[in-house]
């Protein structure tokens, strides 16, 4: 896994993989740029029709309460749930991680998630913006070079089910990156720090799905 090369150098005999980025709110352009740079056919997803055309979906950073309201108001929540249940690979960063979590703590009033990822996520786990930070993380799955990660009013994974694999933790043990089958989640924003290995991992997950 850690040794396999980036996807864009091979295995795309059927052309570039169509990968969607949920583009309702947040830093979706940064994800589109990273995925495009890795050779994927990166597309914005705002409608059920656009969702149906992709083989993987990234849910970006942003405000999870807003994404929740917009997915429900524009009839995207149920198609998204169905797609996740049917095995669509999904990578959630920060707010995106909250969106795919089965359970949240400190959510907004009436906040719902799409679910699928058997974890409990605490929203704004570090406090206000003054406690946002950058740090280096060891992520053995991605090789020896640490991941430089930006945590912006970030969530953490407080509890995880038996099928969830931890990919990275802070020094105090709090889990900030994990995977379960076709679902990948990070508390932080690789798309902000020039870190492409999580997106490469996700593209390999899509190719294998």
């Amino acid at each position, binding site marked *: 896994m850690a040794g396999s090369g980036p996807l864009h150098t091979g295995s795309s005999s059927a052309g570039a993989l169509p990968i969607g980025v949920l583009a309702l709110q947040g830093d979706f352009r940064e994800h589109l740029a990273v995925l495009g740079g890795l050779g994927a056919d990166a597309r914005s997803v705002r409608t059920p029709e656009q969702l149906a055309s992709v083989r993987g979906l990234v849910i970006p950073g942003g*405000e999870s*309460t807003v994404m929740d309201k917009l997915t429900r108001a*524009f009839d995207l929540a149920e198609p998204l749930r169905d797609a996740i249940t049917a095995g669509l690979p999904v990578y959630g960063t920060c707010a995106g991680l909250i969106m795919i979590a089965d359970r949240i703590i400190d959510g907004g009033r009436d906040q719902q998630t799409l679910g699928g990822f058997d974890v409990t996520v605490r929203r704004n786990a570090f406090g206000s913006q003054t406690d946002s930070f950058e740090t280096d993380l060891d992520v053995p799955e991605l090789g020896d070079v640490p991941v430089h990660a930006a945590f912006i009013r970030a969530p953490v994974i407080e509890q995880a089910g038996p099928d969830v694999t931890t990919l990275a933790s802070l020094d105090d043990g709090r889990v900030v990156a994990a995977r379960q089958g076709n679902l990948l989640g990070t508390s932080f924003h690789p798309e902000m720090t020039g870190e492409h290995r999580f997106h490469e991992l996700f593209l390999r997950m899509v190719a294998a799905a």
Partner: protein
Amino acid sequence: MGITMSENSSTVQRGSDQGSSEIRGSDRVKRGLAEMLKGGVIMDVVTAEQARIAEDAGAVAVMALERVPADIRSQGGVARMSDPDLIDSIIAEVSIPVMAKARIGHFVEAQVLQSLKVDYIDESEVLSPADYVNHIDKWKFQIPFVCGATNLGEALRRINEGAAMIRSKGEAGTGDVSEATKHIRTIKSEIAALTAKSSDELYVAAKELQAPYELVAEIARTGQLPVVLFTAGGVATPADAAMMMQLGADGVFVGSGIFKSGNPVARAAAIVKATTFYEDPDVIAEVSRGLGEAIVGINVADLPAPHRLAERGW
């Protein structure tokens, strides 16, 4: 990372995680929160109840203040930072980021807001300036700042002082979007003009913009500001918000336009939807139905110059 902990550095603080190299208050972290607000609507609120309405409607953040600009305009007097109790009550009410305004140049109000742990400080022309020469040295703060600008030079001067987000000013409290249009168009067209210049023309361009050469050269190369650009000042309808997005804004501030309208709950939610689906006239039409009265407003052309807030700041 080659970054060492320093007791004096404002960018490396708090030692609860002994021995770890966590960096707080860096450019990336400050600008990063604004990145996460993109495509969203930031709403002015003056009570915890309004903050609740804003969050329920889908605001991406709220701006806590004592009077919305329309009231500052009609009531007059010196407008200052809000009472800390009010800000605390709003922080306690909502889970989304809370911003608050400090007067231009009033670095102690900014220190107070940082101590209250708001998520962003708006050094705002809507309040009465505290210094007619200098803006706040924003690099000294761990908390990020958003500042207003009417043109590219002003935006770059604010970024040079440490602003981590820019909003075009518009004319706050009027419900008249014409100044917001002018300012976002001006900033965008001045950026486009820079990208067309040859490198030897950038020195004079920097002089004319009254902005640092390094920032000017960066914009000429990248074709965009190094920070997120929202727009503000006079946005009153879903169509106003969508127009700002089509003109290239990353998101929208709505001040008096929501809570000075007939139906704030419906209008707030409609503006949020129009900001996301800004390229889809069918959605904008649908959400624009039955919103009741918009803010009555004032035509900017009828405002005598001393009452134009956008002319504060330089």
